[in-house]
């Protein structure tokens, strides 16, 4: 398998971002972002709506060119060698770019082929993935006829088919049923135990708290904090006993949102 032949050494950081920036006209979406994620980390990337999470993720996966800075994935610059680096990564983007006139199995086999897998391997893996995602009954159905959750699961299966070293997931649990979500969570945790790095963006703090061991919080394009989850929580809540601070409190404290507005002045 071609992608396995050129694996980088395991001591390199999975993701290394230096001074990353991107603007849209006058609007600065991401400002001077610096971040290092070690291999095997389950990294949760948090931020309110419009904070710059998806823009960062697009730049990390080679879907949007940064205006400044450098991104290294497993030691290689993705924008210098996109073809090589993209072999190591799996992506579930915000807007699922599926070919909807293919069936689920056809789509997975196509993706396998694009990552250099021979047809036999791609077929075997797609069968396994469809069973894992509980989509084997629907494998001959066109993706156009899938529900949003089913499409999400197919996209996730496609991101896994080539055995990536880093997984980038943009809101992977959105629209997925609780049973499948549990299977996905277990799968992702087992992947990280095998040194696969997972970079996940989510609005659901509970998921991040339960799954992630590393955390980064972005707000208005700036990375406010990052590091091992517990370390970040303790650092941000020094007035509390160690290990007692919650992610929700920390997140709200960092992004500076008002929390007192429990009543509306006109609803008396």
């Amino acid at each position: 398998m071609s992608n396995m032949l050129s694996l980088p050494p395991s001591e390199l950081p999975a993701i290394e971002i230096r001074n990353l920036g991107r603007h849209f006209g006058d609007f600065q979406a991401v400002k001077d972002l610096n971040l290092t994620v070690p291999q095997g980390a389950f990294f949760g990337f948090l931020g309110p709506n419009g904070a710059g999470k998806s823009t960062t993720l697009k730049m990390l996966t080679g879907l949007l060119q940064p205006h400044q800075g450098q991104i290294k994935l497993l030691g290689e610059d993705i924008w210098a060698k996109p073809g090589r680096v993209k072999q190591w990564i799996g992506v579930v983007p915000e807007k699922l770019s599926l070919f909807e006139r293919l069936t689920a199995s056809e789509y997975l086999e196509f993706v396998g082929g694009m990552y250099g897998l021979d047809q036999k391997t791609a077929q075997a893996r797609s069968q396994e993935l469809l069973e894992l995602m509980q989509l084997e009954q629907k494998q001959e159905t066109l993706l156009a006829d899938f529900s949003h959750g089913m499409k999400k699961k197919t996209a996730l299966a496609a991101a896994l088919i080539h055995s990536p070293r880093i997984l980038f997931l943009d809101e992977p649990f959105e629209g997925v049923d609780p049973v499948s979500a549990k299977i996905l969570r277990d799968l992702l945790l087992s992947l990280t135990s095998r040194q696969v790095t997972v970079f996940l963006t989510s609005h659901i703090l509970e998921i991040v708290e339960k799954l992630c061991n590393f955390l980064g919080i972005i707000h208005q394009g700036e990375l406010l904090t990052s590091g091992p989850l517990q370390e970040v929580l303790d650092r941000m809540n020094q007035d509390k006993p160690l290990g007692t601070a919650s992610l929700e409190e920390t997140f709200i404290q960092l992004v500076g949102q008002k929390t007192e507005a429990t009543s509306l002045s006109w609803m008396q």
Partner: protein
Amino acid sequence: MDAITRPQFKALFQLQFKLLQRAWKNPSTLQKAGVIITLIISTLMAGSLGWVMGYLVVILSQFSQVGSLQALMVQTLLLFMLSLFSLIWLLSPLLFALQNENLHLDLHKLLVYPLSFKNLYVLHTLTGFLEPWSLFFYPMVLGLIVGGFLLEGFSVLAPLLILGLLFGSVHVVWSRLLVNLLSSVLANRRLRETATLVLLAGIILLAFFPAVISSAFENHPDWQNNLREPGYFLGFMGPLNYWLALSPPGMATLALTGGLEHNLLKTGTALSGLFLWLLLGNQLGTSLLKQMVTSESGSRDQAQVSFAWKKSHLLGFLGYPLALIVRKELRSLSRSVIGKLCFFLTPFLLILMRLLLISTSQAPLPATTVCLSAMAYIFMTSLFLFCNLFGLDGEGFKLYLSGPMPVRRLLKGKHLAMACFTGSGFLGVLYLYTVFYEPIPLETLLFLALAFSCVILGALPLGTIISIRFPMPLDLNQTRYRQNATPVLLAFQMLSILLALPALAQGLGKWTHQPRNLVMFAILGIMIFCYFQLLRLSEELFTEHKLEILEKITQPVMS
């Protein structure tokens, strides 16, 4: 540099083949039979076209030895046939991409895979040889060979197959580029709507093209002789001929004639030209692919929304809820493609008409004739909106029903918005008339304003009644479901009657020797009375059928 692997190559070709298969796959047997028949007919037509071209080339090879006028004629004919073929090859993918975005190989969806931009684009282009429009190229080439062979000119044709392949490659590259360009444009709402307008302008321009050509001939002192002389077309006498000569069909024709005349310089120049077209297409395509990842217009819309919100406060004087409805309706109309088309179509036609008449020394057209005709055209084009008042609302209609909105206010709001929309179009027409011809006399201006008011006072409530009776959103191209033509026919009948009112005023004025404006005033009085009566009727009907309307405008569309 990363090389393309065999599985990647295979995966992309299989994907293209599957998409091609699905494009022809339809659920019913009747549709399947239709597709097969269309396929057979199209293949036969492409084959025949190739056969005729082969025949022409052989004839040309015989004429070229003499260097006669007939050779020029055959050459011209060949050029036009190639241009037609070229046009079909380039435009069909665009129409197909507009029709169903899931059936073409969208480059946006391939960016995630481990391929360099250059390789990705090359692979993507190569799969273009498996597109439906490219498939018709093969029977055409086959027809060309057979046609030439039957006329014992195969020896002439054989080396030209290389030319055919180059010609085909140029078209595959350019059709891919145009489709990708279209996809990028369609991804941006503003660009999409502007592109629709440009397309419309292009269609109108094409429709007026015979008139432009004929006036060019008429203005030429020796046009009858020129018409008989094929060299008129090939004599580089205008931008069209320049384009024809430099375009891929022009280059192909030049290479063909060069080959037949054994003129190596001519053939070499033409082949280099075709090759340059190929390189240019490939270069532009790769740049566009890079552009796709360097730009994204996500956040710009937000800024625009806040600007639009500030602007909308202009209608505040109408008070709640009229201002709210008018604001919402005008926003929907101005953002919808159909709204923009309706608004710009008539002024655009007026400009074109003036441009066509610019070379002639005719007297200025009378304001009443031009403006009344333009008014009729405005109503005709926006008739779809008048008789489909709730069609654009969709799920938003629930807001009207769930809120404490009095029905009368809702209908008045919608009417006011439509009146503003149509009225502003008419004001534009009046302004353009004064710019193009001469200031409109006050009496005429008053007559036009009264005429417009009369027509709109009738069109609004009558259109509402039709909309209540047939609330289903109208689908003008009828691709989604079989549509009832009754509302459109009813609306046309309504419009015919209403547009007769200004004529009636003119006629009555002449007959009774009274000023036409006085008669028009009387008619306006009657129309105001009718409007309120019809509004009351609409209100009753609407109250009775509002849930039915909601159900019909929100039901899922059958694919």
